[in-house]
């Protein structure tokens, strides 16, 4: 039997009879195997040492990352409180004129959905052009705006604070919604383009028996004696174009219902990928339009939560009704 024949066997033979040359080869083959094993062992030892060192570095990085994460979470917690504090409460004047129900929920701790209540500067009323009568005290002196800033998280929240400041300033410089929104757009467009952000805007000024509004990508509906009147949505988003915004009017008298919202609810999807849609939302509101605004809002949220598979966006839904008898 030769060495090659021997090595081809799967079990050792009963009698082993190798030539002197094959025995010599067998010796070197065995030594060669030992040598290869030594080299392998040295290679894997070096690799293992490297792996151990890598794991130690990884542990250290994870520890630092955990610390950084805890700091960020704490900061975000404060940011959430600040953003919540920035959300408005209706003035007594508004509460005397409107029933208001609001649902506002950010997807993350802070986010880009934002709504605000504005009061028209007292001085403005006294500086109306000659011949024009001042508006009644309870109306024409407040406005509601709903915004949806592109993106989520901290950057969107900071843009929100930025826009809030601009709108507060705008309210002191102009009275008509389109003039206010134009002023804000002129002031923010360069900056928002630079940081690649934009925002939908729905700005509504309340007048006796009607509203004036600017709608740049927002969603608005008035239900007047059961008839839906949709906001005209022909304008662009804030921070996208320099073109002036247009202003529209709709009747809004006692008993009429208004719905303002962002795209969070209509663009939510069920498990099959179907959109919730505005039609479903408005139909539900229409069916229960005579109930209290808080109850209508609760129905909308129940229906939304049953429908949607996961929350993927910030949500703002405001339902309000003008008080008083028809």
């Amino acid at each position, binding site marked *: 039997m030769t060495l090659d024949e021997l090595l081809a066997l799967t079990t050792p033979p009963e009698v082993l009879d190798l030539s002197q040359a094959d025995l010599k*080869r067998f010796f070197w083959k065995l030594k*060669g195997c030992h040598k290869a094993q030594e*080299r392998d062992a040295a290679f894997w030892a070096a690799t293992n040492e*490297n792996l151990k060192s*890598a794991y130690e570095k990884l542990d250290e990085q994870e520890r630092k990352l955990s610390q950084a994460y805890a700091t960020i979470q704490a900061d975000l917690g404060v940011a959430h409180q600040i953003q919540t504090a920035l959300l408005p409460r209706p003035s007594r004047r508004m509460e005397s004129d409107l029933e208001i129900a609001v649902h506002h929920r950010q997807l993350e701790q802070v986010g880009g959905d934002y709504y605000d209540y504005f009061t028209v500067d007292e001085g403005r009323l006294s500086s109306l052009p000659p011949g024009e009568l001042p508006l009644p005290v309870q109306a024409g002196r407040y406005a509601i705006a709903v915004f949806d800033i592109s993106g989520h998280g901290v950057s969107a929240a900071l843009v929100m604070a930025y826009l809030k400041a601009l709108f507060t300033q705008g309210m002191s410089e102009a009275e008509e919604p389109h003039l206010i929104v134009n002023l804000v757009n002129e002031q923010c467009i360069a900056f928002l383009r630079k940081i690649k952000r934009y925002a939908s805007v729905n700005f509504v000024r309340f007048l006796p028996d009607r509203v004036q509004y600017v709608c740049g990508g927002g969603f608005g509906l008035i239900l007047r004696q059961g008839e839906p009147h949709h906001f005209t949505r022909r304008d662009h988003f804030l921070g996208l174009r320099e073109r002036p915004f247009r202003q529209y009017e709709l009747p809004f008298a006692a008993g009429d219902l208004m719905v303002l919202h962002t795209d969070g609810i209509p663009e939510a999807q069920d498990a099959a990928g179907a959109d919730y849609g505005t039609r479903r939302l408005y139909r539900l509101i229409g069916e229960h339009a005579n109930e209290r605004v808080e109850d209508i809002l609760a129905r909308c949220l129940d229906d939304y939560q049953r429908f949607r598979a996961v929350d993927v966006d910030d949500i703002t839904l405001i339902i309000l009704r003008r008080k008083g008898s028809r």
Partner: protein
Amino acid sequence: MSAPNDELLVMGATIQGFAQACVNLHIVAGRQTEGLVHDIDMMGMYPFERLRALERLVLHAYAHSAAILERVGMAMMLGWYHFGPGKQIVKTGADFLRFQSGSQGYASVVKGPENLVGFFRLVDLDERAGLAHVHSTTPFEKNLERGVLIGGMSAPADLDYIEVVNAEDPHHFRIEFH
């Protein structure tokens, strides 16, 4: 390791061979080496510093780099033999020593001033006894070069045992083969 010198050039195939060996062995430097050799042409000549940069990746990544560089050298030569021209050139392990010390071997892959290029000299070869002695002053890292000798001699698969030792003097490789 001597200072970088752009007068010393190495063939692109050597740099690529090193990088490919790192990739094949899945060592830490593997992915980084790919990025460092994307512009290397196999037949082109490049500053030797390009190869040293690759060596440094391994040296920095491993606390005990000697066994790693030896394995890289072995893998380089197995690649050269099985996927390059090696199989046509050498038929036995001893052939590799003769080839490497000839004009087509080391002398063809490193160019530059004589004092920087150094030499790879087969001082002694006794095939019957299975012994050889190589004196090398090449600029290659000596653990890598030991791996090159082991890999190059084992690639034809005619030898059962190869031992290359340069522990006493890194420039003198004492080789036993059977």
